[in-house]
């Protein structure tokens, strides 16, 4: 397939789907690409085909509405398709069902969303430890709890949502562990009062856990996971205001653990294309520089959604509409009025989203949870001590660490260790993490089987394929 679209949107979450809908409604020829098999993104990920029927939830209703809107539009939805390389101008290399094709467009919108950050602790690589946000992906697709008795640990509202979903799906929650204090939540309360429906949902999650006698450990953190090929116990300790440990560990029994420390924007595609990046803790770390309506310093490249800073699903959707309208207007279609409405809604929902993001901003003590023996780079099995040895030998950037220790070189492309490695460099050099930018991303943006790129699939050789032959 080689088509020239007016606009291609990468990412079918609330932001990308709304951007595509807005541009399509202006009469443009729009393609919407996502590696998932259905529209919805992370927040409204669709159930897989094995679920014939199940009770509806807030998430399934919102996702179904978005899916219906896209289906009823003229958008070309290319599902199950991974964008692995982008050339300026724009040509996208898209891998779908083991075939790589090129798609071209006049303007490109990237709505690549977020992934989660998990602070490495001893034992976090044990099978049976899931990311906290990752667990919701499992629930949404498979309606399966993570185990029989699960400890749920993390920051912000997500920890209570995950605990509640485990109970809804018939699992048992052994304990909720959150670095946030009750006082952190009291501070967030004023902005939550403006969103009574969300406040009510959160209150029900917490009240249900309390009625069920599930212990909620406030201002506590997971320090260690024991078990080998299965979780057997989880140690937790008390934190001070700066999230430094202040107590000895206590051990809790469980067969599974969901563990997370907030979300970080997926900036790789934008960064690779040359969009300048800056660091802002209030938005989840490194973010690409954009104008309010999604424009970038690069002609006909637009960005929207949590990939431009963590503001939550509702803000992502409004920002998507705004960005889609703006991209359409730049191609000569559309009105300023609609843009104004979308911008007002976006700014309002963004304020609330950022209050939630603030609950996950890392504090100075957090880095100490990663002990010298802790594996930091999961792919290459590299410990903090090995990375520090590289630093002592003179390595000063994420790139230098990569070539010295292989940390960040594995098949995930450094997506799950880059933040922790930057933390270590910052500690060693005394500089703030804002001075330690991530290594420049290189294609492929997603693992590409070598059978596509150069002959046969070889896991070890990833991720450095040749350009696709098609």
């Amino acid at each position, binding site marked *: 397939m080689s088509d020239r679209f007016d606009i291609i949107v990468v990412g079918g979450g609330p932001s990308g789907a709304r951007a595509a809908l807005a541009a399509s409604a202006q009469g443009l020829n729009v393609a919407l690409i996502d590696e998932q098999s259905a529209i919805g993104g992370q927040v409204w990920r669709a159930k897989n085909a094995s679920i014939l029927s199940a009770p509806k939830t807030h998430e399934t209703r919102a996702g179904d509405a978005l899916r219906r809107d896209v289906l009823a539009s003229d958008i070309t939805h290319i599902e199950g398709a991974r964008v692995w390389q982008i050339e300026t101008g724009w040509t996208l290399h898209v891998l779908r069902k083991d075939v790589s094709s090129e798609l071209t467009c006049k303007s490109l919108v990237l709505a690549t969303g977020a992934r989660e950050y998990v602070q490495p602790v001893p034992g976090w690589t044990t099978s049976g430890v899931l*990311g906290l946000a*990752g667990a919701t992906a499992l629930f949404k697709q498979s309606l399966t709890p993570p185990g029989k008795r699960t400890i749920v640990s993390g920051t912000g509202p997500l920890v209570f949502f995950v605990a509640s979903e485990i109970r809804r799906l*018939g699992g048992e929650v052994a304990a909720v562990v959150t670095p946030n204090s009750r006082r952190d939540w009291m501070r967030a309360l004023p902005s939550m009062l403006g969103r009574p429906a969300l406040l009510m949902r959160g209150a029900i999650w917490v009240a249900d856990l309390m009625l069920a006698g599930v212990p909620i450990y406030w201002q506590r953190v997971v320090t260690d996971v024991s078990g080998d090929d299965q979780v057997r116990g989880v140690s937790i300790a008390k934190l001070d205001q700066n999230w430094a440990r202040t107590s000895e560990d206590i051990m809790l029994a469980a067969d599974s653990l969901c563990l997370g420390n907030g979300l970080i924007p997926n900036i790789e595609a934008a960064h690779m294309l040359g969009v300048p990046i800056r660091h802002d803790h209030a938005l989840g770390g490194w973010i690409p520089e954009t104008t309010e309506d999604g424009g970038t310093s690069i002609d006909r490249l637009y960005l929207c959604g949590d990939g431009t800073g963590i503001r939550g699903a509702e803000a992502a959707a409004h920002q998507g509409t705004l960005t889609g309208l703006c991209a359409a207007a730049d191609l000569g279609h559309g009105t300023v009025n609609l843009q104004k409405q979308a911008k007002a809604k976006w700014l309002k929902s963004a304020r609330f989203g950022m209050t939630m993001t603030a609950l996950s901003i890392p504090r100075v003590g957090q880095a100490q949870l990663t002990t010298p023996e802790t594996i930091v780079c999961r792919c290459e099995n590299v410990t903090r001590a090995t990375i520090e040895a590289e630093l002592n030998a003179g390595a000063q950037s994420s790139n230098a660490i990569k070539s010295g220790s292989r940390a960040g070189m594995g098949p995930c492309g450094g997506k799950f260790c880059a933040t922790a490695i930057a933390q270590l460099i910052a500690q060693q050099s005394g500089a703030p993490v804002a001075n330690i930018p991530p290594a420049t991303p290189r294609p492929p943006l997603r693992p590409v089987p070598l059978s596509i790129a150069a002959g046969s699939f070889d896991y070890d050789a990833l991720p450095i394929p040749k350009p696709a032959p098609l």
Partner: protein
Amino acid sequence: MIRLVPNHALKIVRSAPVVFTFDGQSVEGHAGENLAGALLRAGRLHLRNAPANGGPRGAFCCMGLCQECTVRIDGQVVEACRTEVTQGLAVERAG
């Protein structure tokens, strides 16, 4: 006991069971679900061995990024969280 969050487990209707193998042992899943979910429900969490120390690893991000859930099917390494279960599928532990 009063529950504010209902237990929906018994209201979920899944597709017909299918049988596949993981390292030669039979595992039951449902047609159309992903391998990571089916293996997890069967208590099979250890999906690959880490390089260097061979430590057991399993699904972690559940969104196709971390590559911890990779398994081998027909000699190809694939992400269990993005692969559909089918009748008779032969799945091997990777790494």
